[in-house]
């Protein structure tokens, strides 16, 4: 198991180097000059422009710029944001917990609902429920997130007034961040003794719509995958053996079938992390969620090179490590993989 881990781990390094080159190169292909954007189109007199350009090292040859980027990455701060003058890592760690919280809740929602629905559809194959579920999951899968997010806001926030429109928590509460996850920080003693559980509920309500918007596609994918994987496994010989042993149906489905059906489901969940991140960019923009999705969109508009480079590298690295974790879980469930 440990050897398997290290083998996987060493595969990660070349991938990360490749991504760093790609993210470095791609932003330089986008038209738009960061110096010009910083100085404002009118205020650029040539000397100031040249001075700024050399300050940002943008007048150096490409390989030197890349080397500088790598050096900062290895140093750990990923350089300085052109816009805020803070280091990229500081900016990132301010915002990442918000995205993480949203992503976890969205995926949790997708898994908790998607897997049981898929199992149920497989057991009641070709029933009304099965057809209804498969149709609605197709709809869920095809809905554009920005549209779905707006529809949710329109119905639940504007018409019904059940949930807030944007942000992470009501401005009435001043929550000092400790873990960065609002659901956890609002449960700390100082907060509950001052406000009770109201801040927690507020944070929860703020999370509800964005996580539904972000979790809908994963939910649809997971439900479909669970259904087809379960159907396949239920037809296997070992399920018949389990029946012949006299095991109760619940145990056959919940243990013997699910354990084997989980392998492809977990792969899909791992891959869905990628779509969660892309989902975050849209969702966070719609719901003004202060996470990395919104941050990167803003940085692209501002041509904030260090932030974009660093941000993409972070996200890519995250996805790689999540996939690695998925591989590990794989090996745990499926003994043939070890």
């Amino acid at each position: 198991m440990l050897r398997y881990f290290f083998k996987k781990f060493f595969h990660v390094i070349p991938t990360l180097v490749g991504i760093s080159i790609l993210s470095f190169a791609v932003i330089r292909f986008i038209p738009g000059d960061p110096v010009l954007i910083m100085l404002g189109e009118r205020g650029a007199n040539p000397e100031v422009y040249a001075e700024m350009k050399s300050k940002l090292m943008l007048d150096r040859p490409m390989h030197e710029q890349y080397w500088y980027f790598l050096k900062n990455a290895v140093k750990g701060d990923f350089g300085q944001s052109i816009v805020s003058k803070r280091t990229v890592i500081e900016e990132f760690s301010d915002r990442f917990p918000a995205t993480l919280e949203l992503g976890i809740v969205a995926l949790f929602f997708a898994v908790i609902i998607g897997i049981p629905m898929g199992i149920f559809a497989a057991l009641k194959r070709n029933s009304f429920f099965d057809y209804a579920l498969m149709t609605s999951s197709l709809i869920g899968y095809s809905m554009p997130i920005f549209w779905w997010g707006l529809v949710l806001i329109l119905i639940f926030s504007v018409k019904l007034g059940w949930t807030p429109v944007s942000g992470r928590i009501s401005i009435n509460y001043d929550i000092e961040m400790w873990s960065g996850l609002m659901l956890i920080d609002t449960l700390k003693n100082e907060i509950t003794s001052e406000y009770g559980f109201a801040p927690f509920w507020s944070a929860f309500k703020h999370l509800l719509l964005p996580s539904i918007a972000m979790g809908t596609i994963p939910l649809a994918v997971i439900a479909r995958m669970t259904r087809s994987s379960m159907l396949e496994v239920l037809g296997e010989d070992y399920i018949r053996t389990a029946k012949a042993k006299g095991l109760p149906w619940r145990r056959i489905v919940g243990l013997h079938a699910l354990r084997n059906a989980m392998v492809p489901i977990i792969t899909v969940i791992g891959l869905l992390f990628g779509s969660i991140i892309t989902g975050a960019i849209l969702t966070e923009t719609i719901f003004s969620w202060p996470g990395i999705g919104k941050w990167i969109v803003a940085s692209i508009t501002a041509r904030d090179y260090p932030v974009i480079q660093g941000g993409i590298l972070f996200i890519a690295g995250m996805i790689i490590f999540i996939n690695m974790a998925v591989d590990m879980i794989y090996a745990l469930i499926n003994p043939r993989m070890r």
Partner: protein
Amino acid sequence: MALLEVKNLSITFDTKKGPITPVRDISFVIEKGQSLGVVGESGCGKSLTNLALMGLLPDNATVKAEKMSFDGNDLKSLSNNEWQKIRGNRMSMIFQDPMTSLNPSFTVGYQIEETLKLHRSELNKVQRKKRLLELFDMVGIPDPARRLSQYPHEMSGGMNQRVMIAMSMACDPELLIADEPTTALDVTIQDQILNLLLDLQKQTGMALILVTHDLGVVAQNTSKLQVMYAGEIVETGDTQSLIHSPRHPYTRGLLNSHAGHGHPFRSPLPSISGLVPDLFHRPKGCQFKPRCDIAVKECELEQPQMIDCVRCLKVTGSLGGQQ
């Protein structure tokens, strides 16, 4: 009282192309401790009959029977709960392919222990472990302590079939159904597994239904033999007399195509020409008629009844005054 009694069992499947009846009007009885061999070509309904006895047929199958009882329990009207108490406990089954019949995600030890936990809940952990080692020893798996913690993919087909046997023997069943237990195995292992099964049957005194293509093994080791063709029993009886004086033309054909000791070296084996009938277009009258070399015109008109343990108009002399 007979251990297992089946009377006029038919199995019907609802398919998209219409209903088919792969098994029809089967009747047989097994006494306690008796061994029954079942032979016949593939697609003759042998496996389906066994699955029906275990209540393991898929949902689109309908089982009709005048009587189907196991030790006084009416198998037709058992609730799920009652089935669970019989299956794997008093009546167990071994399947064709051991490689796919064991769950790949659990160790073999766990899978056998599960049966014990279910049906022998009075045993504690230590006793269960002891029983597991005993079972592995009984089915001839060397180094049982190590093997118990292995996964099915880490073992050979023969070893896995031994595991399956150990699993089915875990609760000392009164009836063991072995459905072509050696078909998926290497030829060199087939004999070992069959002999193991027959030894176990003699040791424990359980009843055994052995479905196989190997007439040699059946001839030596079972007390009763049943020949199936196209979902019907065409001949049945005491194994020795059936082997030595077969009466139904199909039984004779099967025995002739078996390379026994009496077969001349290097001469071609006789075979039965033709195929088992398509179940959507069953022939009228005798099912074997299209392939039969002694058939007469009347065989096509009338479906032969089981008379004196044979289902053949010609042999039983029930041709309306023609004989």
